[in-house]
């Protein structure tokens, strides 16, 4: 019964617990240097400390604000530009090369530039999250609209639908499907942008705390923060996944 596919999560959880136990035992036996690899119990204590003294909240607030702000802006602007480029050839001619270049390069290299332009406050982090998300959504929407199922377009036309009917019943739902299909990737990009931006120059945020932990050689804090970011992103992935499942229930 234990080997049934339905209980895979129990097996995975058990394997993880064994790994933690071995890690802890190895640490206590002096086989691991705590400067580089602290014990799981030390990481847990650092995590509890972050929350118990309440100093994590302003940092979580800063990262969430930057990531979700960049995500929302990136989705809206990416959709608008993608639709405009798909419908107006001149806009496509102007935007496509820029987006291709932005897509090809690791866009996080723009972080220092945003700090110079927008300062070390929230704006530079939102900008980095925004650029990461907007380019992804633009490409998705632009390519998607150009590859929209012609049979559906023809069906709406033959049923007597006008241009607005095409937008409402074919293009908008198609765009929504493509955007939702990429929502999880966009969430990941948004948090990457926020954390990297904070890592480069900031006074708040999980990225800033990571940078602080690195400069003070505090490996336990670093592991605790990585774990925290992981949990936060997985939680948002879960919400995005549920949203996607509900809104794309026809698929």
């Amino acid at each position, binding site marked *: 019964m234990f080997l049934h596919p339905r209980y895979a999560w129990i097996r995975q959880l058990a394997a993880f617990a064994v790994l933690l136990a071995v890690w802890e035992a190895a640490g206590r036996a002096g086989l691991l240097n705590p400067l580089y690899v602290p014990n799981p119990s030390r990481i847990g204590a650092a995590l509890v400390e972050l929350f118990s003294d309440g100093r994590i909240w302003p940092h979580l607030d800063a990262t969430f604000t930057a990531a979700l702000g960049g995500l929302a802006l990136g989705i809206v602007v990416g959709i608008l530009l993608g639709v405009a480029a798909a419908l107006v050839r001149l806009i496509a001619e102007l935007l496509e090369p820029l987006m291709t270049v932005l897509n090809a390069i690791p866009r996080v290299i723009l972080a220092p530039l945003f700090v110079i332009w927008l300062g070390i406050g929230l704006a530079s982090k939102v900008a980095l999250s925004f650029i990461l998300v907007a380019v992804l959504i633009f490409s998705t929407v632009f390519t998607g609209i150009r590859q929209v199922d012609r*049979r559906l377009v023809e*069906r709406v036309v033959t049923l007597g639908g006008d241009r607005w009917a095409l937008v409402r*019943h074919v293009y908008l739902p198609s765009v929504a499907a493509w955007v939702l299909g990429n929502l999880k990737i966009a969430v990941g990009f948004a948090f990457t942008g926020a954390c990297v931006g904070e890592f480069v120059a900031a006074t708040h945020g999980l990225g800033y705390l990571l940078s602080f932990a690195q400069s003070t050689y505090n490996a336990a804090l670093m592991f605790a923060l990585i774990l925290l970011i992981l949990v936060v992103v997985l939680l948002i992935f879960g919400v995005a996944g549920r949203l996607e499942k509900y809104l794309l229930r026809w698929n």
Partner: protein
Amino acid sequence: MRVRDLTISYGGEPVLEAVSLTVEEGRFVSLVGPSGSGKSSLLRAVIGLQQPLSGTVETHLARSQLGILFQDDALLPWKTARDNVALGLTFNGMERKKALAEAEAWLERLDLVGFGDRFPRHLSGGQRKRVALAQALAMKPRLILMDEPFASLDAIVRARVVRDVVALVEREKISVLLVTHDLEEALSLSDEVYLLSQGPRAHITQQYPVPIPRPRDPVHSRMHPAFSPLYERLWADLSREVDHRAEAA
């Protein structure tokens, strides 16, 4: 509906040349021919999705009186079966609530009670075809254009759907232009069959009146004494046409 001297080209040599045919009111007409003879292009020109090089398509029908049933059901995947059926009605000015009630009635008529809330992906091939049929019939068309509409269905589902279609078009006195390469299907359903030659420059080579009385059962009409001789003639003509073109090539 009258097609006169229709020539269709996609840039090079015409796929169809000077094709003329007539679908009288309440008649079931089929167009058969080898693959690549431009059968689907002709239908697309009748609907207005393909601009002909020359020739005319005359109908005394409004756009909403023209129903379409293609091999691909092309239902909007994000809309339920009921919404898909109601779509054309709302496009033509019917209030949404009334259109949904009308759509539900058509689904019931086509044995789809309880399937109105399902999305196309959650329906079988036969059910999707029925939804597409309900979508076409809900518009109360006077002419339905069909392009291999039953080709993707398995034999039993196909027989049922075809039986329903025939019963409906006979009862509602709807004209039909069916494009198919299935000679048996064409003869068992139609009042008249046109044979297209092998393309390019495909043209009508023969016209066959089918003297099987209505109302018809599509399966039993194949046992009618007139069926076999007509089928043999049509098959011989089609084979000759394909062989002749192969020799010319």
